[in-house]
């Protein structure tokens, strides 16, 4: 008995000793949270963009949230609408799956302007996954997935106000209200308004550099959370109304619409969304849950570009049921479920009616193996039946391996399939004298076949200490191989000299997009972080006129971002400085050789660089102001609009934009919170 007691005491002591040793050994370093987070434990090549990072580029909506991030390239889509277009692995947003809280958001009719319909202040975080992505949300993604999480009512502050104004006369106002309705229900109301009120023509071509615009955007969301029972639920209501007017400075829509007095364009979009989510986590089984999401939306765009009329209304319903659980233990997880999608398109291009109904139903299964240390694998597959795409299988695979300390190796492969909404996705071409010609007739989507591509990826990242500071070096290589593609041809010279066209046809031959990104990030001195990336794109397609690189795509790009923060003082005062540098190599331009000399463009655009900066002054934890500049080097594209002197003539083209149209721009704003 005595012996037992002494053993017990000894072992107790032993425990104590090891405890006290641990308290000595473990020195917790509370480092500042990173704006871009990339975990070495996640299977897919996913970067998390936190709200902190989003504050670095204060203006203004989701489309503009990627300026400080090397994975995504931000370009301008045309010389008129001021719309920013994003690209990943060299492919434009139609090849990405863009979700909002895991519900597909920018798709179909909203492809051209959808990203500008989510105000930046609503965003809590963004997950960017390069490559094939998960099968859970659908089959459409080819080069990547972007999922935006909005601010959740349950942990939101009661009141937030953001006001913004810029030298290009754009004004924004964001107000957030939050209320706790009971111990389980909370609600948030986000109200956003923006306007551009003054006409600006900095390059003196007679055309507005940015459209006159007005947007009202309201989101009301309710969250239910019952931790005891394991239920979570969201209900969202959203209304958006966006009006843009652009074209010649003298254009007056009331007088000149539909005439050749002046060239002008109006794009009016009204959108209504209702969505709900219900999630349940099983009692005593935190690894087992189900979720049920439903979303209804109506997206109605009425627009004209000069004499080109384009109206599209998309009414959609999306439903997703998902069940998560384990096989034997949490090293083997799975997710399985069903999706349903219904899209009614009422689409009119001038007098042509392209209205149609699309629907699909699919089932998915995704298995995840994670050995809890250095290896994980996600293998998924789904079968879908779509009234235009047929019945098809979509496999996706992601593997992560940590071969040695602080090193991450990732491999991915997957298939994607989609129908190209040729008019909605290439709307910027309406602002030109081009005729639209679809060369195929046998397919089910505008006469064209669905697009199918395989994406393969390999990436490696090594973290290390450089002069005692955290740094990392890595590369990503991705290859997208199109087995079927709808080619958008801006090269092939028209049959009748002096006219212009855009051709759409099924790929006959090869089309691929290879991209290589090399990253190097280091904390130079305390609180001074630098991110650099070099990107190489080799994107080629077999056009009717022969093999060529994709137009308006730089082969080489360089990116650098510098961020510096001072120490936060006791009262919460802090300075933050951020500077982004982008260098774009030359880009191949669409064919203009048949134009008169004064309206010709060179085969390649010149290379150029862009610089943005922002300074934020935090006065306390509740009040801060910021000031920034975009394109402070004042680089402007020469001849942004071809044939601007004669906009109804045959050489007119506002869609060939490789650089900013508007020169330097300065902005300032404030943020006020009640906590």
């Amino acid at each position, binding site marked *: 008995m005595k012996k037992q007691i002494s053993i017990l005491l000894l072992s107790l002591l*032993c425990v104590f000793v090891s*405890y006290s*040793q641990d308290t000595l*050994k473990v020195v917790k370093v509370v480092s500042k949270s990173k704006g871009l987070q990339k975990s070495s434990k996640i299977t897919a090549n996913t970067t998390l963009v936190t709200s902190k990072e989003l504050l670095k580029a204060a203006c203004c909506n989701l489309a503009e949230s990627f300026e400080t991030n090397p994975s995504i390239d931000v370009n301008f889509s045309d010389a008129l609408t001021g719309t920013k277009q994003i690209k990943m692995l060299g492919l434009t947003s139609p090849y990405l799956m863009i979700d909002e809280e895991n519900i597909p958001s920018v798709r179909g009719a909203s492809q051209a302007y959808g990203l500008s319909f989510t105000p930046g202040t609503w965003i809590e975080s963004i997950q960017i996954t390069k490559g094939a992505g998960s099968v859970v949300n659908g089959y459409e993604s080819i080069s990547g997935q972007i999922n935006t999480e909005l601010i959740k009512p349950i942990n939101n502050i009661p009141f937030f106000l953001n006001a913004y104004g810029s030298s290009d006369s754009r004004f924004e106002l964001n107000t957030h209200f939050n209320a706790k309705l009971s111990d389980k229900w909370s609600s948030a109301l986000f109200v956003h308004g923006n306007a551009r009120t003054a006409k600006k023509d900095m390059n003196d071509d007679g055309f507005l550099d940015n459209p006159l615009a007005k947007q009202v955007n309201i989101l009301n969301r309710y969250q239910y959370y019952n931790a005891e029972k394991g239920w979570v639920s969201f209900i969202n209501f959203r209304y958006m109304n966006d009006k843009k007017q652009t074209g010649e400075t003298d254009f007056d829509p009331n007088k000149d619409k539909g005439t050749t007095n002046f060239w002008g364009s109006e794009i009016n979009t009204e959108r209504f969304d209702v969505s709900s989510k219900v999630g349940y986590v099983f009692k005593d089984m*935190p690894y087992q849950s189900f979720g049920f999401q439903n979303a209804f939306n109506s997206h109605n765009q009425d627009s004209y570009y000069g004499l080109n009329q384009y109206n599209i209304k998309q009414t959609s319903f999306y439903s997703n049921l998902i069940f998560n659980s*384990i096989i034997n233990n*949490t090293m083997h997880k799975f997710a399985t479920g069903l999706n349903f999608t219904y899209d009614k398109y009422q689409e009119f291009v001038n007098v042509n009616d392209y209205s149609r109904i699309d629907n699909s139903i699919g089932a998915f299964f995704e298995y995840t193996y994670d050995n809890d*240390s250095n290896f994980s694998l996600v293998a998924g597959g789904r079968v879908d039946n779509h009234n235009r795409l047929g019945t098809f299988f979509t496999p996706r695979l992601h593997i992560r391996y940590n071969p040695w300390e602080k090193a991450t190796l990732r491999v991915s492969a997957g298939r994607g399939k989609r129908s190209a909404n040729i008019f909605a996705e290439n709307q910027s071409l309406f602002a030109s004298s081009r005729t639209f010609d679809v060369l195929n007739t046998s397919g089910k989507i505008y006469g064209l076949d669905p697009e199918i591509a395989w994406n393969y990826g390999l990436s490696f990242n090594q973290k290390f200490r450089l002069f005692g500071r955290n740094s990392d070096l890595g590369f990503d290589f991705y290859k997208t191989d199109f087995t079927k593609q709808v080619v958008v041809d801006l090269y092939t010279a028209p049959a009748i000299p002096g006219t212009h066209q855009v051709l759409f046809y099924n790929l006959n031959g090869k089309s691929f997009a290879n991209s290589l990104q090399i990253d190097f990030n280091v904390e130079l001195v305390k609180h001074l972080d630098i991110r650099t990336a070099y990107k190489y794109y080799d994107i080629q397609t077999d056009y009717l006129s022969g093999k060529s690189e994709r137009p308006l795509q730089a082969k080489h790009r360089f990116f650098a971002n510098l961020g510096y923060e001072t120490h936060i003082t006791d009262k919460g005062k802090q300075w933050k400085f951020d500077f982004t540098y982008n260098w774009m190599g030359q880009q191949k331009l669409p064919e203009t050789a048949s134009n008169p000399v004064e309206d010709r463009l060179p085969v390649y655009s010149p290379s150029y660089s862009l610089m943005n900066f922002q300074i934020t002054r935090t006065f306390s934890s509740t009040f801060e102001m910021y000031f920034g500049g975009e394109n402070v080097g004042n680089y402007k594209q020469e001849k942004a609009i071809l044939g601007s002197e004669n906009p109804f003539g045959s050489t007119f083209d506002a869609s060939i934009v490789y650089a900013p149209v508007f020169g330097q721009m300065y902005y300032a704003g404030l943020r006020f919170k009640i906590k």
Partner: protein
Amino acid sequence: MKNLFLGMMLLVVTLSVQAQTKKNKNAKYTIEVNGNCEQCQNRIQKAAFSVSGVKMASWDIDSHKLNVTINEEKTSIKAVEVAIAKVGHDTKELKASKESYAKLPGCCQYDRW
């Protein structure tokens, strides 16, 4: 006295029978396991998962607490402790053999007498 003893025996037997018939498929346990570092974390969790019937296992480096969820129809917490001790990590109830302790990687050589 003898009766009382018998009665108690009977009670214990009935209790254990009851426990047998109503076995928890998601029984949660928290036990202390000796170890120091991330490497130990992998070893301990791996050992726990090697027992069929263990659904979830996570060991916290700071607190040395192992949270496990087991299906008691298939296994017991004792079996988990045996598996962990086998790879060299002591639990409160069960000490690892000297041999398996000696085989632990350097970082995991927690203090022991």
